[in-house]
């Protein structure tokens, strides 16, 4: 979960007024720097330095020669993208379809549940429901996939029940035709509850006087929802849509790679698994790296663009100028 707003940086402003010289500050703050060093080093080594690894998108990388000595091949590796390699296109279209399904079916659910929770009268019932619904978020994808197989698989609990009662069977797991629905259902199960947190936090900050004023003006509960609650969480919704956009090309790598074996690549290959299977699996490094690089660039570009649009509409977005 990534949520930043302006005070993080804005807090710097007052200190800048009578800032002592560089050398003075270095002598004063060197211990703080030393504190930051180990964490910063880890961040640089495993978040920024790896970006250099993208050069192999322009090389014919051979693990035995090493990155430096592998020959440059210009844009050759990008041919799979420009020439429309069918395997690549299949992965791309699966990615986009799953992403779209998630935006339509997964994104609004936490808002609905949060509205429901927020309208509860009993605080205790609300807390119990929250505790239960947040729990699956902390389970790893391996656990969630195993639980789904166990509940809904061909030999699972539901089908066992259906069969003993002669009700046919429900073939969701290991069924290529239903793979995307399965992925969406798993995400809903795992993260709907967790997704309500930010909306609930935003709702709790709405001034109760607004509801009172609306009620005095004769607004029904539904109209209050429309005119007070939803506007109150608008900026959170926009923020999350922006972040979601940045992830449009990343759809649950762990979740999908775990279930690929059963349904085959045609139904289940997405960009991340395409990159992983071709590179780490089959040793086709250059082309996979090219696909990964393009994917990464599009992701960052989408976040920046969406943020720009949010600014145009006077919203705060992820960061401020």
């Amino acid at each position, binding site marked *: 979960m990534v949520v930043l707003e302006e*005070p*993080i940086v804005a807090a710097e402003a007052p200190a800048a007024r009578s800032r002592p010289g560089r050398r003075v500050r270095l002598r004063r703050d060197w*211990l703080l720097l030393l504190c930051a060093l180990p*964490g910063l080093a880890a*961040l640089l080594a495993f978040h920024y330095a790896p970006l250099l690894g993208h050069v192999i998108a322009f090389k014919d990388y051979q693990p035995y020669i090493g990155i430096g000595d592998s020959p440059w091949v210009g844009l050759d590796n990008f041919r799979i993208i420009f020439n429309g390699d069918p395997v690549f296109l299949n992965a791309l279209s699966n990615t986009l379809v799953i992403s779209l399904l998630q935006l339509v079916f997964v994104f609004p659910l936490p808002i609905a549940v949060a509205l429901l929770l927020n309208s509860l009268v009993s605080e205790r019932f609300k807390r119990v429901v929250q505790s239960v619904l947040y729990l699956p978020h902390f*389970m790893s994808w391996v656990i969630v996939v195993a639980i789904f197989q*166990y509940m809904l698989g061909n030999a699972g609990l539901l089908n066992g029940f259906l069969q003993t009662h002669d009700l046919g069977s429900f073939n969701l797991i290991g069924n290529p035709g239903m793979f995307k629905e399965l992925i969406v259902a798993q995400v809903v199960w795992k993260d709907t509850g967790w997704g309500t947190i930010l909306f609930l936090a935003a709702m709790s900050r709405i001034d109760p006087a607004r509801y009172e004023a609306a009620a005095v003006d004769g607004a029904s509960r539904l109209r209050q929802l429309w005119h007070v609650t939803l506007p109150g969480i608008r900026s959170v919704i926009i923020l999350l849509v922006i972040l979601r956009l940045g992830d449009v090309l990343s759809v649950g790598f*762990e979740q999908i790679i775990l279930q690929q*074996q059963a349904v085959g690549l045609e139904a289940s290959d997405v960009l991340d698994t395409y990159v992983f299977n071709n590179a780490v699996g089959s040793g086709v490094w250059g082309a996979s790296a090219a696909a990964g690089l393009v994917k990464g660039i599009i992701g960052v570009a989408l976040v920046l663009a969406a943020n720009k649009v949010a600014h145009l509409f006077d919203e705060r977005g992820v960061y401020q100028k």
Partner: protein
Amino acid sequence: MSTATTPAGVPVRAAKGVVLTLCCLLVILPFVAVISTSLADQQQVTAAGGYVLWPDNPNLDAYRVLFSGDVVTRAVLVSIGITLVGTTLSLGCTTLLAYGLSRPGSFAGKPILMLVLFSLLFSPGIIPLYLTVKQLGLLDSYWSLILPTLINAFNVIVMRAFFLELPKELLDSAKIDGAGELTILARIVLPLSKAIIAVIGLFYAVAYWNSFFSALLYITDNAKYPLSLVLRTYVVNNATIGGGDGATALPQQSLQMAMLVVSIVPIVCVYPFLQKHFAKGIMIGAVKG
């Protein structure tokens, strides 16, 4: 919602209650069934066609068989080791980094903060990460399960926000009394931040316990598999598992579900502590910035 509105009518309230209760059941029921199957005896599992919702004669046979073999035992030990070492290192580095960034206007503070913030907007990508770990010679090393995920930038931001909220006068007076940065950190900041440190530590611990991505990418030697990879092999991909002494008169399903329970239980144990804090502390802090 608000005190001014008249509460919704009984039917509406009942409907809400029913919907939310159903949601809760959808979450709880699978866990109950998993635990039940792991505890059920052989006859019942066979009779039920594999899985049971409630065990008639609960027993721990499945667990005994699991831990008599070395596959699961070793994986559990690996996961415990990674979680302990990883959480300690992550928490230490995160606290120090957050503290180092908690003095506005300090030398190089702003660029470092920007590096932390910006890292949230992109991920380095699968291949570059793999190559980095490979170049560092960490493939098939336990360190590959710890170092790449050592710092979670979001946790740094949350902790820094907490440190920034600490009363300035306290820090200033300590400085006037001649305390150095490290003394202030150890004597004043840390004791006041126990709650946030505990929560972030738990978040790290759960992440290490669950870690799958790193293990999938960097670990090929199955003697070094953490629990998540063993789960994938034997539960998700359905490979046959047996105990060390070949005493597997037990149905596969019981063993698989027992393995699942072993990986779920630690999370459920720390969950109440996590839950107590994150709802009000972390998330609201994050929204405020």
